[in-house]
């Protein structure tokens, strides 16, 4: 079951990127999380046919990736996997929306084409910004950022444990899968008829595991109370920095930089 191994490796590769020590890595996780959200909102807020205005936003991933020394490859492969669906939705616009939008040297650019390119750039920007967030911020830091934003402990714990037991459960399921496939060499996967017992067994084992974890928690005095430390203080300079980035993003949203440059060149 190479698919399972691949998925776990993917997470673990992204996780290893967070071990580096750069300016971006050292930023408080809350700031990075908020910055990503603000960036996303600004990008998404562009109209469906706007293309040129989006170009300057490419600076964000390029700048962060170079400063944070994030290697291109793992992120780009992730992006490629995310692309098909939006590509499909974007492409379909070419057929449904053939109104002319503008002329370029005698070629008609239809609305559909603009929408397609716009969706493409938005996908790249949104996917990259999230991937940059997780490759510069460890899961633990993200959890603390969530606590800082007053997300209830029960949810933070839930995300933490799901993340913690991903590899454990994936390991278990992969062993079971191999055991199955070795005895059913002609099958491409688990037969539908066997899915009941196959997943059922794993569910029962998972329930037992959850019981043992609960006992382990109880044995160390768990009563549903505080289990995280107080979050690190975020300095005023960081908030100031976040504000500056937001203002720059907003300006780029209102003022089409590409346009301006173009007009300057044309005269």
């Amino acid at each position, binding site marked *: *079951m190479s*698919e*399972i191994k691949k998925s776990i490796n993917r997470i673990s590769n992204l996780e290893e990127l967070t071990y580096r020590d750069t300016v971006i890595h050292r930023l408080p996780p809350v700031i990075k999380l908020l910055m990503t*959200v603000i960036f*996303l909102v600004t990008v*998404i*807020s562009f109209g*469906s046919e*706007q*293309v040129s205005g989006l*170009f300057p936003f490419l600076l964000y991933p*390029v700048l962060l990736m170079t400063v944070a020394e994030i290697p291109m490859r793992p992120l780009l492969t992730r992006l490629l*996997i995310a692309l098909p*669906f*939006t590509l499909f*939705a*974007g492409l*379909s*616009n070419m057929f*449904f929306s*053939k*109104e002319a939008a*503008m002329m370029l040297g005698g070629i008609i650019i239809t*609305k559909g084409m603009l929408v397609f390119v716009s969706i*493409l750039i938005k996908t790249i920007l*949104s996917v990259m910004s*999230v*991937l940059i967030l*997780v490759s510069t911020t460890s899961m633990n830091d993200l959890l603390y950022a969530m606590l800082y934003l007053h997300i*209830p402990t*029960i*949810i933070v714990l*839930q995300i933490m*444990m*799901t*993340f913690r037991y*991903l590899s454990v*459960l994936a390991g278990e399921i992969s062993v079971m899968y191999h055991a199955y496939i070795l005895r059913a060499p002609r099958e491409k*996967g*688990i037969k*539908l008829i066997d*899915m*009941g017992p*196959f*997943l059922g067994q*794993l*569910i029962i084992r*998972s*329930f037992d595991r*959850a019981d043992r*974890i609960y006992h382990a928690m109880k044995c160390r005095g*768990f009563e*549903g109370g505080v289990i995280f430390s107080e979050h690190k203080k975020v300095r005023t300079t960081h908030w100031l920095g976040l504000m500056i980035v937001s203002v720059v993003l907003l300006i780029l*949203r209102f003022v*089409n*930089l*590409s*346009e301006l440059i173009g007009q300057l*060149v*044309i005269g």
Partner: protein
Amino acid sequence: MHMSDALLSVAVGTTMNVVSTGTIGYSVSRIKKYEPEENKIPMMGVMGAFIFAAQMINFTIPVTGSSGHIGGGILLAALLGPFPAVITLASVLLIQCLFFADGGLLALGCNIFNMAIIPCLIAYPILYKRILRSKLTPKRITIATILSVIVGLQLGAFGVVLETLVSGVTELPFGAFVVLMQPIHLAIGIVEGVVSAAVLCFIYRTRKDILENALGVQNTPKLHMKRVYVGILIVAIFLGGFVSWFASSKPDGLEWAIQKVTNEEELTIDSEVHNELQQIQNATALLPDYSVKSVKPIRENVSTGLSGVIGGCITLFAVTAFGTIIMLIKKRK
């Protein structure tokens, strides 16, 4: 059917995030109130990981020979109860969004709504619970599960259609989109329903108590469920009515606001537009095959096409150069 950020408008994204956050908040309070034992916490955590792992196994679908995987909403609700199931699925969706780019961060609200809230808090109580309330037998479990999985997925897929169309980023016609989405998800639903039913029947045979617990815990919420429905209904009306009006009359909320702010620019565009339109009409005459339906795109794009392209190229070049320079500086250190 994970929705991504690029196909979403800010208005729809925000609305759905608010709805989902509210529902999750409500679920948390329900869990705190009705399950004072904290043993649900590790249970939910491990089951989240289980769903994740289970989604990675492909099973073979008979006859077609193709393979598929489960979504797990009804399965989780049947094992943990609806409210813990919503939170568990939401955390799975968050992790998928962060590490696998499966669905966007702003689209998380939509995805949680379509894939967690709809199956667990709508399909589960209306169908699964109602069918099994009086008696728990393998036959009933099978029927209840298959039905609720199919209905849940159909509603979820329809949710995707609505949210995408209301966003107005892509211009798929409503009919085509529905015809595309619903039948695919009917097929997926039947298979997932059968698998979930088989799993639950196995659990029934080996650990009946798990199913009984999950059903029994939520004995009271009948009245409370109404509140959830009313909430969802209000939001639906809000979405369907206000937002779509907003979206259709003003192509995009923020853009509209921006146009208001930068009022003067629009005025200057107008005169140029006329010119450009003339050209376009000429062009269409030369290219009769190409069906340019109407000539009314009065947007900044029309007047400023060329400068945008040139400026865009320069910007792109500048960004790349900038990145390379930083990289070189970093390397030299």
